[in-house]
């Protein structure tokens, strides 16, 4: 169970809505993934001409919408997009994304922290996409963010948890949910993130660019379930030595 700003979500899988071949394919993938929270870029919505083809079907599916500020290069642009989202979509939840680098789309830590302070002050539930930097994550938490969303690898790169050592520290220290966002390329990556103790994962490219997005969405749903069960149980300790499951010295106890 994921608790975000007092809202309970059954599924630890969040979905991005870009890159799909059609609205119908996106809806099918959303349904197959079991997600209850999807993010969508404000810049993609055509609210002025009301000709958008994904907003209404998503609302009909009943999933919660998480507008994002993709395209913003500065704190002020992100804040503008946030206000627009709140007014147009009637939600004060926001995925804060500020990436001035269009090549790797890496989040700007300075502008993100600055925007987070301001948005929290304005009453938003802020979920910031951020570098896997433990200090920054604590600072975002102190700023009042409802979660932190560190990256596993560059967005869309499908490389998995390349920032593992930092993610472990972030998860250990966090007092808000940690959602691993960006870079998860396979269901096993999502499972690994949840096993580590992450509260949730956000996936887009791995599903949207898959040969069969619906099958891949199903794979992610199941992997997330596996990860949550494993986390609940706690993983067994690892060792460099072999440990026999039936020790050879067992007979001593019967003598």
């Amino acid at each position, binding site marked *: 169970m994921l608790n975000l700003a007092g809202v309970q979500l059954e599924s630890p899988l969040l979905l991005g809505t870009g890159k799909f*071949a059609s609205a119908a394919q996106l809806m099918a993938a959303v349904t197959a993934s079991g997600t209850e929270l999807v993010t969508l870029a404000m810049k993609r919505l055509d609210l002025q001409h009301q000709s958008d083809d994904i907003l209404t079907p998503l609302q009909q599916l009943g999933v919660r919408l998480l507008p994002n500020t993709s395209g913003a290069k500065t704190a002020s642009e992100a804040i503008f997009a946030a206000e627009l989202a709140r007014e147009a979509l009637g939600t004060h939840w926001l995925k804060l994304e500020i990436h001035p680098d269009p090549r790797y789309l890496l989040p700007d830590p300075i502008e993100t922290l600055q925007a987070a302070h301001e948005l929290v002050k304005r009453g938003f539930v802020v979920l910031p996409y951020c570098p896997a930097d433990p200090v920054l994550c604590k600072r975002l938490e102190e700023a009042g963010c409802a979660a932190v969303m560190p990256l596993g690898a560059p967005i869309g790169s499908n490389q998995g948890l390349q920032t593992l050592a930092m993610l472990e520290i972030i998860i250990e220290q966090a007092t808000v949910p940690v959602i691993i966002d960006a870079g998860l390329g396979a269901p096993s990556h999502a499972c690994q993130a949840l096993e580590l103790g992450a509260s949730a994962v956000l996936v887009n490219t791995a599903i949207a660019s898959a040969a069969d997005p619906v099958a891949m969405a199903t794979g992610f749903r199941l992997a997330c379930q596996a990860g949550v069960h494993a986390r609940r149980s706690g993983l067994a300790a690892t060792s460099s030595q072999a440990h026999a499951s039936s020790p050879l010295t067992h007979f001593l106890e019967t003598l």
Partner: protein
Amino acid sequence: MTQGFYELWQQQSWEHQLLQSRSYSLAQVKQALGKTRLTLQDFQALISPAAEPLLPELAAKAQQRTRQRFGRTQQLFAPLYLSNLCANECSYCGFSMSQKVKRRVLTAEEIEKECLALRQSGIDQVLIVTGEHERKVGMSYFRQMLPLIRRHFSSLMLEVQPLSEAHYLELRQLGVDAVMVYQETYQQSAYQRYHLKGQKSDMSWRLGCPDRLGKAGIDKIGLGVLFGLADWRTDASFLAMHLLYLQQQYWQSRYSLSVPRIRPCSGGIEVPYPLSDKHLVQLVCAFRLLSPSLEISLSTRERAELRDQLVPIAITSSSAGSSTRPGGYAVDPEALEQFSIDDSRSPALYRQHLQQLGMAPVLKDWEPYLGR
């Protein structure tokens, strides 16, 4: 002080690049194909004659990269010609000053009509095009007209004469999101042979333009060569060099690439270095591998059969239902074109076709408040 690309270009030899672009072995091509981060030499290997037998592998890899970065989507835009006045003499262009064509500059009222017609067809991103005439269609005209156009569309791209850094800063505030300045060719002797009069004959002013755009913080910078004017492999090598340089210098800008080939126009020249369909595909795929984030557009100059094949492999934006004359959508659909187009499908028909190809047409992906 950092040197601009013009200074770097001056240190290069066209002949050296020409020889180099043909010198690669099959083994070097395979090596380049296996890499995730390509150098200029890897790019050259991929466009070399040695790479031709591996074109299917190159295309498969390019498609994979395109899908990963851009998904199964295609941005749609349309050109909006405001004027065909030109103070340049370019021997391949139908708008050249010596061409006996009816000249016109659209008024505010006419622009409004054109914008409404484009909006009606669903277009939300426009590429504003004028001939190059600084005195009559310069900053004062742009100051007056851009705000009128801006109201109608989510994204404005501009293809006009190269301007100064200060003017680009102002244009950015006026709502310009992208500026396309095509070099035409990087070979000095060919450049001078084709560009006979006017500001455009100053090659250094044009070559330095993307630097000025980067310094002014323009969000998207469009590069391109008019293929057919000089040896395509060498021009493509310089274009790649230019792109790599710009990506490093101006890391906050996006880059886009156009790959126009000379088409028949009323100026009518023989094409000295034709770029074949096969080589066009090879070139586009090699650019995709060199820069996975590069936006690549394909215009309606290309015929529908080729566009339908190449778009799903590596193209990220395409125009549809284009008119290449001022007033061509609503004001005066009979006027002379800058060049003839080959794919005349309407935006609605083209959208339908993209969906059949398994791609989502994207009409809007920007907001006017971004990038100011």
